[in-house]
């Protein structure tokens, strides 16, 4: 495909919602400028774009910036940027609304980001686990969290290589100052799609159910400046506390009470310092790795600081 053709297609995509103009037409206008008048391609594109802007009665800043920038998901930190990504579909979720055709997670080596595709864009469906080059997706920001939206101009090309999904974990240090309710031995809804934590044997979605046991901790790490809620899943809880699911069930059975598990765990972990590492999920960090911290490593530097004030 020639450069001119590519630019023509991009311009066409930019105006597809506003003007009925074919790629061929645009290409021929570009060619006239480039071939007949020796205008550099970029300048030709600018000129052609301007005339279409006039036709559509639009300002340049209403336009999707053409030749959207190629980036990685971890670099996305601005709202309403047009970007190209090469990603693997890491996860697909149930769309929460009729207008949404697909929602899920896209990943590349820099991490993962949420994506949304809308019914009205009439795009081909993305398959979970497949890798794609996505052209012209637009970034979106909500309460500090970034996502990308696929749209009518988005190009989707399946890649024959697999894009590696890196982990986008964060490290948090602090004293474990509290275990929140819902920590320890809990019961979850047995529905595979649901797995909500039961309250008094009830699932908020499925009512009274015969739950299945799970072990997890919702803990608060506090470094004296800020607090961070973290979740230890069954494996991380077992490795942190030395109590695995089987032992937790046994403890609860012996005591005829599940709360003994949380109490025992609280005694083992509260007041200790940890560094945890894992991906962020809503207001939590999901702990993949952790280590206990002790000792006053930086005491000498602090002493120098104290004497210099």
């Amino acid at each position: 495909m020639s450069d001119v053709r590519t630019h023509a297609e991009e311009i066409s995509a930019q105006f597809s919602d506003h003007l009925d103009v074919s790629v061929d037409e645009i290409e021929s206008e570009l060619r006239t400028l480039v071939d007949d008048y020796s205008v550099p391609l970029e300048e030709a594109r600018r000129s052609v774009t301007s005339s279409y802007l006039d036709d559509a009665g639009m300002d340049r800043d209403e336009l999707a910036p053409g030749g959207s920038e190629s980036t990685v998901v971890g670099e996305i930190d601005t709202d309403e940027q047009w970007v190209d990504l090469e990603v693997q579909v890491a996860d697909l979720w149930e769309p929460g609304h009729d207008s949404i055709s697909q929602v899920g997670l896209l990943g590349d080596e820099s991490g993962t980001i949420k994506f949304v595709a809308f019914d009205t864009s009439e795009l081909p469906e993305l398959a979970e686990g497949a890798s794609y080059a996505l052209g012209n997706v637009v970034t979106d920001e909500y309460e500090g969290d970034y996502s990308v939206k696929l749209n009518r101009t988005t190009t989707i090309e399946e890649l024959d290589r697999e894009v590696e999904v890196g982990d986008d974990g964060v490290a948090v240090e602090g004293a474990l100052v509290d275990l929140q309710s819902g920590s320890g031995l809990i019961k979850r809804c047995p529905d595979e799609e649901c797995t909500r934590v039961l309250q008094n044997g009830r699932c908020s979605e499925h009512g009274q159910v015969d739950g299945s046991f799970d072990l997890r901790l919702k803990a608060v790490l506090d470094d004296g400046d800020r607090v961070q809620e973290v979740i230890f899943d069954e494996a991380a809880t077992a490795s942190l506390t030395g109590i695995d699911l089987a032992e937790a069930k046994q403890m609860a059975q012996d005591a005829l009470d599940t709360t003994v598990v949380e109490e025992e765990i609280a005694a083992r972990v509260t007041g200790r310092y940890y560094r945890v590492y894992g991906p962020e999920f809503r207001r939590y960090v999901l702990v993949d790795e952790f280590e206990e911290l002790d000792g006053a490593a930086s005491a000498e530097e602090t002493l120098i600081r104290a004497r210099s004030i």
Partner: protein
Amino acid sequence: MSGVPSREVARRVFAAEYNDGSHTFKESDDERAPLYYLLPTGERANRVFLVGTLTETEDVGEDSEYWRGRIVDPTGTFFAYAGQYQPEAAAALRDLSSPAYVAVVGKPRTYETDDGTVNVSVRPESISEVSAGARDRWVAETAERTLDRIEAYDDEANEYGRMARERYDLEIDQYREAVVAALKSLEQGDELGGQETEPPA
């Protein structure tokens, strides 16, 4: 944001500073608004985290159990009180044998005695036994946080620094000196096998 009130951070403060304050305040008329204790170095504290040596526990209650724990850091002594409304902390004080390194998460409480002096104590949310390493880490961390507050004390934008200057007549440099002493005690502790400096009376 989510409508869930954010959890109050647990301040790090040495006993020498903690026991010097007296002023508490709320920032809203709401009955359930958090109560803050004003630290002498100019920060509001609704919660504190401290690690020290539990040197003594005593049931000082008359009708029901009311446990008092003395917890010593390199600069002084914290007093923690737990009764029937803090059953876990009270049980911990009952069961722990001193001396032991303990971590305490709790709320600052002030109490005015008959002669008008104000005592500051901690109402624990939790008390747990920890290692000497955790204690050392707390001392180093508390030193850092205290220096942060001392450096920000005179900032125009620091409303709690201003509040401390208005409410208290205290020499801030003594808390910098306390930091130095606390950090030096860590070094000595290493050399002398964990000996504590004498807390002031």
